[in-house]
C-alpha cells in the first residue's frame, strides 16, 4: 500500500507523517500521530466524536481525507490546553466542564469541546442555551442528557466574557 508523506499543521505546529492516501484525518491523528483525543464512535458522520477544527471550523475528522487537510490549520482537543485563553494547561471550557461534571464517560467530550470552542469564538459574548443547542447539534452524548454540557458552555462563555466586560 503506497504511503504518501503528509505535511500537516496541527495545533499550530508543522507535523509530518506517512500514511496511505485513503486514510482519514482521524486515522492519521489517532494511529500515526498518537493524538488520541479525537474519538471514533461511528466513523461515518453520525456522532461527532471525531470533531476537530480545520481553519477554525469544527468538522468531522472521520470524513476528512488526511491529504485534503494539508495546508490548513488543524486543531484538536490536545491543542486547547495551550491556546491563548488557557491557564495551567486548561482551557476555560475544560475547566467549566470539570466543574459542572459535564463529562461522564468523556468519550464525546473532546468533540463537543471543539464544537463549543468554535461557537464561543464566533459569538464572542455570553451564549444562550439555545445557541449552545444549535451549535452542538451534530455531537451526540449518550451519558449526560446534555443538561450539564449546556450549563458548562454557558458558564465558560461567561468566564471568557468577564475580563472583556471589565475593560
Amino acid at each position, binding site marked *: *500500500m503506497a504511503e504518501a508523506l503528509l505535511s500537516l499543521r496541527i495545533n499550530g505546529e508543522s507535523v509530518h507523517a506517512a500514511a496511505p492516501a485513503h486514510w482519514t484525518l482521524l486515522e492519521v491523528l*489517532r494511529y500515526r500521530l*498518537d*493524538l*488520541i*483525543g*479525537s*474519538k*471514533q*464512535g*461511528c*466513523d*461515518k*458522520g*453520525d*456522532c461527532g*466524536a471525531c470533531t476537530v477544527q480545520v481553519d477554525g471550523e469544527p468538522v468531522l475528522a472521520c470524513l476528512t481525507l488526511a491529504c485534503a487537510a494539508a495546508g490548513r490549520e488543524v486543531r*484538536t*482537543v*490536545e491543542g*486547547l*490546553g495551550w491556546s491563548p485563553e488557557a491557564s495551567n*494547561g*486548561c482551557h476555560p471550557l*475544560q475547566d467549566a*466542564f*470539570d*466543574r*459542572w*461534571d459535564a*463529562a*461522564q*464517560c*468523556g*468519550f*464525546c*467530550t*473532546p468533540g463537543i*469541546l471543539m464544537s463549543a470552542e468554535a461557537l464561543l469564538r464566533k459569538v464572542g459574548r455570553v451564549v444562550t442555551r439555545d445557541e*449552545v*443547542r*444549535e451549535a*452542538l*447539534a*451534530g*455531537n*451526540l*452524548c*449518550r*451519558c*449526560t*442528557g*446534555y*443538561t*450539564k*454540557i*449546556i450549563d458548562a458552555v454557558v458558564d465558560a462563555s461567561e468566564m471568557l466574557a468577564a475580563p472583556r466586560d471589565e475593560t
Partner: protein
Amino acid sequence: MPEQPGPEEDVGPVDGQVEAPVDGPVDGEAPESEPEPVRWQLGKSHRKVDAMERMRGITRYTDDIKLPGLLHCKILRSPHPHANILSIDVSRALAMPGVHAVLTGEDLPVPYGVIPWTPDETALACGKVCYVGDGVAAVAAIDEDTAIAACEAIDVEYEPLPAYYDPEEALAGDHKINPYAKRGNLSKDVVLEFGDVEASLEQADVVVEGEYYFEGTTHGAIEPHCAVAQVEPNGLLTVWSATQVSHYLHRELAKVLRRPAHTIRVIQPPLGGAFGGKSEPFDLEFCVALLAIRTQRPVKCLYTREEVFYSHRGRHPMRMRYKTGFRQDGTITGVSARTFIDGGAYSSFGLVTTYYSGQLLCAPYAFPAYRFHSTRAYTNKPACGPKRGHGSVQPRFAIEVQLDKAAVELGLDPIELRRRNDIGPDGMTVNEFKIGSNGFLECLARVEAASDWGRRATLPYGRGLGIAGSTYISGTNYPIYPNEMPQAAVQVCLDRSGRARVFSGANDIGQGSNTMLAVIVAQELGLELDDIRVLSADSDLCPVDLGAYSSRITLMVGGACLDAAQKLRRKVRAAVAKRWELPARRVTLIDRKAMDLEDPSRSVSIVEAFQWAEADHGLLGEVGNYNTPKDRHGSYRGGTIGASPAYSFTAHVAEVEVDPDTGVVEVKHIWVAHDCGTALSRRIVEGQMEGSAYMGFGEALMERHDVDPGHNGVHIGPSLLDYRMPTFLDTPELHALIVEAPDAQGPYGAKEAGEGPLHPSIPAIANAIYDAVGVRLDSLPFAPPRVLTAIDDRLALEHAGELPTFKLGRGRAGLASARAAGGVA
C-alpha cells in the same frame, strides 16, 4: 403449568452466612459513639478525579492503547439469521500475506455464559449460526484492511434454516435455535403468585386490562467495544477490554481458554459509556486472547458501530398483558401479569431478566395480591440482555399506564392515586422483599410542585402533563455465581506525604464510581479529592469486584470503602489523640488537618497526623469489605432474585406538546425526583438522573432496535444514523430534584442513582400524551405515524358520538371542524 424449579434458583449461598468482618476497636479503645460527622466532602459537588484528563484528550481508552507489533483482528459474521455451517475453509485467508492466524468455532469450543447456569454461547459459532451478525471466524493480520480481505477469503458453506423473529412463534416452532438450549426455544419460564389474585380482582371495583408492547432498544454508548490482548514470555496473558464486568470476563476467559485464572490479567481501561451493553464477555475478547497466544503478538479488535448493534444485549422486547384491580378509593387490590420476552439468540442475563420482569414491580405501590408469568424465548436476533433498568423498565411502563387508566376511570388525580398506594418505608413487599428507607412520597411531592401540576386542569388540547413512579434495586443480594466471599472489597493506603490510594476492582464506566470512592476516603480522612489516587479494575492490582451492574457500586463498593477508610480514620485519630492526650472522640479529620473538635484552634496538618499514625501502626493500609444482609429476600424458590439491600425511588412528571395534525410529540420538560438515599456527590447524582431521563425519553419517542422479518432478519438500521438517539435539539429540559431518604444499608445512607431514574420516563410521557390528546399509546415507540393513527381513531369515535370530545372547549374548535369536514387536518 409452573415449571419444576431448576437448580439455578439456588443463587444464594446455601448455608453459613458470611458476615462482613467486624472491625475491632483500635488499641483496645471502645468503639466511639460520636456526633454526626461533619459533612466535609459529603454531598458537595466535586470535580471528578479523572475527568480533566478525559477533557484534555489524554486518557487512554482501550482503542488508544499502542503496543509494538500490534496485530488487528476482524471477525467474519454470519449473513444468515439461522443456518447450519456445513464447512469452513480458511486456507485462502491463511495464505494471504500479512495474515498471522485464523480462528474458527472449533478453536474455542467451550460454551460460556455470564449466568453460570445458562452457558449457551461459544466465542465463535460451532456448527450453526443463530442470527445475522453471529461470529463465525476471526483473523489476525498486520492491519485492518488485510484482516477484512482475509475474512472475505474465508469460504463458509451454510445450510439455511427457518428463522423465528417472534417469541410466541419460536416457542411453537419445530427448529431449535440455540444448540445448547435444554427446552426447545424456551429460554426461561417463571410463574410466581403471592396472595389470591383471582379473588383480589373479583373484589375490585374497577379492573383495568391492557396489553402493552415494548420494542427493543439498545445502549448506544458512544465508544464501540474494543479489546486488546498480549502474552508475556512467562505466559501471562493480559486482556484490556472495554468491559463493565472485568471479573466475569476474567472467569469466562479462564474457562474458555482452559487456563488458570492466575495466568490471566484483565484490565479495564477508562470506558466510553456502557449502560449494560458491556456487562458480559463478547466474542472479541476471546478472539484477541487466543490470537495473541497463537501469534505471540499483541492483537486488537475494535468493533465497527454495526458490530456493536449485533453484540447488542439491550432491552428485551416484551409483550405484556396486565390486569389490575382497584377499589373506588384508588387502592390496588391485585395485579396479574402475563409477559412474553423476546430473548434473541442467547441467554445472556435472560434468566435474571425473566425474574426481574415480575419481581421488581412490587414497590413503590403495595400490591395485596400479585401473580406474574413471564416466558422468555429464543429468537433469531441479536441477543438481548441488561440495559439500564434491567428487566423492569418494560413492566414499569405497563403498570404505570395501568395506574393512569385507573385514575381516569375513577376520577382521581393520578398523583393522589399513587400516594394512596404508597408502600412506605421499612415494610415488606408482597413478594417478601424487605424495604428500608423510602422517599417516594417526597418524590411525588417534589415533581408535583416543580411542574406546577395544578395547571394540568387547564392545559389546552395538545398539551399535557403525565406522572409515573418507580423503584429500583441498589445491587442484588446475591452475586451471579454462588460464593461466600464478600460482595465488595476495597483496599486503602495512606502515604506519609498526605496522600491516599484506593485499590478497587470496581468498573468506572463514566458514572463516576472512582470519584465516589475518593469522596468517601476524603470525607473520612480529611483530604481533598486531589490527594487521592484511585486505581481500579485491574485484576493484578486491585481486589476483585463483581462489576458495574444492578446499580451495586455505590452501596456495596462504597460500603467496603467506607469500612476501610473508617479503620484508617480510627488509627489516625488515635495517634493524634495519644499525642494531644485527648479522647479520640475529640479528634476530627477535616480540611487536610487533624483538629480538636472542642478547640478548633488546635490542629496539626494531616501529613503530620499520618506520620504519627504510621509511627504507631506501621504502614497505613486497610482493607474494607461489604456483604449483603441475607434476610431481605423471599423464602420461596427464586425469592433471592431481585432482592436488594436497599431500594431507590423515583417520580417523573413529563410535559408534552402533541401536534394533532402530524402526531409529532415534543417533550418539553421532564422533572425527575429521585430518592438516592444520600447524595454523596450532588452533581454526579444529578448527572445520572438527567442521563437516565434522557435515555428513557429516547426510547419513548424514537429508538428502535429490531430486525426485518421480511428481509432475512437483517437489522433495521445498525448505525447511529438509523438508530436515532436524541440530539441536543431534541432533548427536553431535564430538571433533577434530589430526594434523600438515607438507608441504613448504604454508606452514609446512600442508595443508587444510575438506573432507577430512567424507569418513569417512558410511562410519564405516555400518560402526558393521554393528558394532551386523549389517546393511549400502549406500544413503543410513540412515533408520529402511530400517534397520528391513535388521534384519528379517537376523533372518529368522537365524531360518531361514541366518545366524548376530549378537552372540549380547550383549543379544540379548529381541529375538530377540520377533521370532521373530512380533510386530513
